[in-house]
């Protein structure tokens, strides 16, 4: 071993020495290169930006095409300019930017969506979301099965299209997906707002697994789509706990007075998670008829139910505060008394703040 090292030490030493020197030189040269590139980039950026701004307020298609042809050779700088501008302009100007994008970068990026290179797929997903049209959504939907960061980018891109056609693609993908991600689909749907209502209605009527029903109910609550109330209450007695939790939560968001009875029965659910959610939603209804149910919640064995009952009573204003005071003074249950006192303190804090 020693002999081996003795023989090889000078060579290893020399190799390392050259490498270290090389690294040092690399850092220096890289910095010089970066400074040089930054200068060129800034100059080109200004040039392209000026030219694009000059055509933003014209409808002359020839001018737009001329710019596209002129700057196609600098895709990196052109992308930076377009991304920068699309964040600050709106309306017609946005359409012009999208046209320049379509003439220069779009086709390459659509091809990049299927690239084996993760970075290309990610950038393509992002840029297509910013500039492309709803026709590209099916390709973007495929990226919901990609790596997490690309999935995240795809969700943001799809959610950003202000077009109802997108929802058609999205709900078809939802139905076909054996394991849809609740975060992805609720993000997309909630950004499209009430336009999603009819799609949710059509979908919720289909025979779907409980997991998908739960996601649809969550979406309805997030919008909030009040017209879906009849469809939602059908699931209040569903055997799946997750579905009942989502029903209780959605009813709290829809705030339909008629849901008092259903929520009261969910507040007696054998599962504490359903009970806790139902109690919280009852508070949002702000109906004095729920006071006794909420008072009962303060005596629950579950901390979460007690805590949510306290919050619900606070949501009910003075009626709720009076109930909390009554419980804190009369109850023999120390847990309920503690929670009631905490609620009273919070009420006082809210008033003084």
């Amino acid at each position: 071993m020693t002999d081996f090292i003795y023989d090889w030490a000078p060579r290893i030493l020399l190799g390392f020495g050259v490498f270290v020197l090389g690294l040092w030189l690399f850092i220096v040269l890289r910095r010089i290169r970066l400074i040089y590139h930054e200068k060129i980039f800034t100059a080109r950026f200004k040039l392209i930006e000026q030219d694009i701004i000059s055509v933003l307020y014209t409808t002359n298609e020839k001018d737009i095409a001329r710019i596209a042809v002129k700057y196609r050779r600098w895709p990196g700088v052109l992308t930076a300019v377009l991304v920068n501008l699309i964040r600050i302009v709106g309306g017609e100007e946005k359409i012009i930017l999208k046209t320049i994008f379509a003439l220069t970068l779009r086709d390459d990026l659509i091809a990049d969506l299927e690239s084996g290179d993760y970075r290309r797929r990610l950038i393509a997903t992002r840029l297509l979301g910013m500039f492309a049209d709803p026709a590209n959504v099916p390709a973007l939907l495929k990226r919901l099965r990609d790596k997490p960061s690309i999935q995240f980018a795809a969700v943001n891109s799809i959610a950003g299209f202000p077009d109802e056609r997108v929802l058609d693609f999205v709900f078809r993908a939802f139905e076909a997906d054996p394991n849809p991600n609740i975060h992805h689909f609720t993000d997309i749907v909630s950004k499209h707002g009430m336009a999603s209502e009819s799609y949710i209605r059509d979908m919720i009527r289909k025979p779907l697994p409980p997991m998908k029903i739960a996601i649809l109910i969550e979406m309805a609550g997030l919008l909030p789509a009040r017209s879906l109330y009849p469809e939602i209450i059908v699931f209040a007695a569903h055997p799946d706990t997750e579905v009942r939790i989502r029903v209780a939560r959605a009813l709290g968001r829809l705030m339909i007075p008629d849901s008092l009875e259903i929520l009261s029965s969910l507040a007696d659910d054998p599962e504490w998670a359903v009970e806790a959610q139902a109690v919280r939603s009852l508070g949002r209804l702000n109906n004095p008829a729920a006071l006794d149910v909420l008072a009962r919640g303060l005596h629950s064995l579950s901390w979460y139910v007690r805590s949510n009952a306290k919050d619900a009573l606070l949501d009910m204003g003075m009626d709720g505060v009076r109930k909390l005071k009554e419980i804190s003074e009369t109850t023999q249950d120390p847990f309920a008394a503690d929670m009631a006192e905490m609620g009273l303190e919070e009420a006082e804090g809210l008033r003084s703040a």
Partner: protein
Amino acid sequence: MQKLLNDLFTFLSNGILLYFFAINILYALFIVLSVIGIIRHTTLLKYVTLKDMFAQPLVKPVSVIAPAHNEEATVVDNVRSLLGLEYPVFEIIIVNDGSSDQTLERLIQAFHFRKTKRVFRKVIPTKPVRGIYLSPHEPRLVLVDKENGRKADALNAGLNVSRYPLFCAIDCDSIIDRDALLKMARPFHEDPDRTVGVGGVVRLSNDCLIKNGQIENVNMPRSWLARIQIVEYLRAFLGSRLGLSKIGSLLIISGAFGMFRKDVVMQVGGYDHKAIGEDMELVVRLTRVLRERKARFRIKFVPDTLCWTEAPESWKILKSQRNRWQRGLIQVLQAHKKILFNPRAGVTGLFALPFYFVFEMLSPLIELTGYVILLYFVVVNGVNTPFAIKLFILAIVAGMFLSLSAILLEEYADRKFPLFRDVLILFTAGLIENLGYRQYIAAVRVKSFIDVIRGQTGWGTMQRKGFSSEKKT
């Protein structure tokens, strides 16, 4: 007898040579992985603004938990700085861990805290909580006053009181970048089901210009001791931890700044209040339990600078800090020895933990053994001088290669030191680190073994200069 000793020491020195090559090859490999990681990360943030997170309808709120013990001089400024963090929904829980100075009083006075009867679930046992305070002026602030039980206990108390699904454990005396929560929370939003913990790069704030609780200008410290530690930190965070995370072997998320999923941490029982290195212990336990459950999970490392902390500028404090780190490492490895080299623990048992055992825990012992052998051969006149000199130079060059690579990684990741002069200083620090500093740290770490055998569990002292609203030191 001498022949026997000669043979033994020759055998040992061959072993040390092999060890030397193995450790350098592994670190070089991590650096290659880190380069890939940094390039990927740069792409990840291209054409995206972190504030997009604010537009997410289901954004996960974060509880920031900051334990404070005897920090009357800096605590108010630090909390003010935390209130400036950018994130859609978050709360800040300051845990006064039985301070014997005016920490509690200063906080109450500055933020008009009022004692409340707040009820919380004591899921993790902690030392008694004396009171929970809320601020009517700043609803995001919660102050927990409890009996002293060390950092892990304070973090557990904060966890019990916290309300949100993600929590971020920080050192109260660290400076957190304004967008740090957004950067840290991103992996939890990208992969919400699998991500259980995220760590980031911690860097040194010595002599930096600090304004309104934020790093305004990154300066090179005047103290060479701090400069050497900058190189060490770059090597540790960018060169090693990022590389380890790429192969699913990250076992340390710095206690100065780390974000976790609360439900998972609660399930494993929170922080171990007896652990000296509670940050590493938690990650190892999380990894162990989740592997036992065959759960799919990931612990991510974000190669962005998110948090700044002050490095010791005195040998005494440095000694105390490194002694504590080494004791913490020994304690964690001892506590989890069952999964060491255990194939059932997957990559953690077969690579990550053995790596920390062989190349982190034992390294000072092996280094010191090398010096003893050298001394022996010098005494018996048996040293092969040209060989020893070459080997010594080789060790320095290898060390410099790693340091320089870490500086190169910094160039790719952040480029916080724009001046060529600063790079030259770091390069020099990487060189002089080998001439005394390394040997001193090795000796301090060897002493930790003796302290562990003696049963020492204290934290030692760590004095910081702190940062006020505006300072250039």
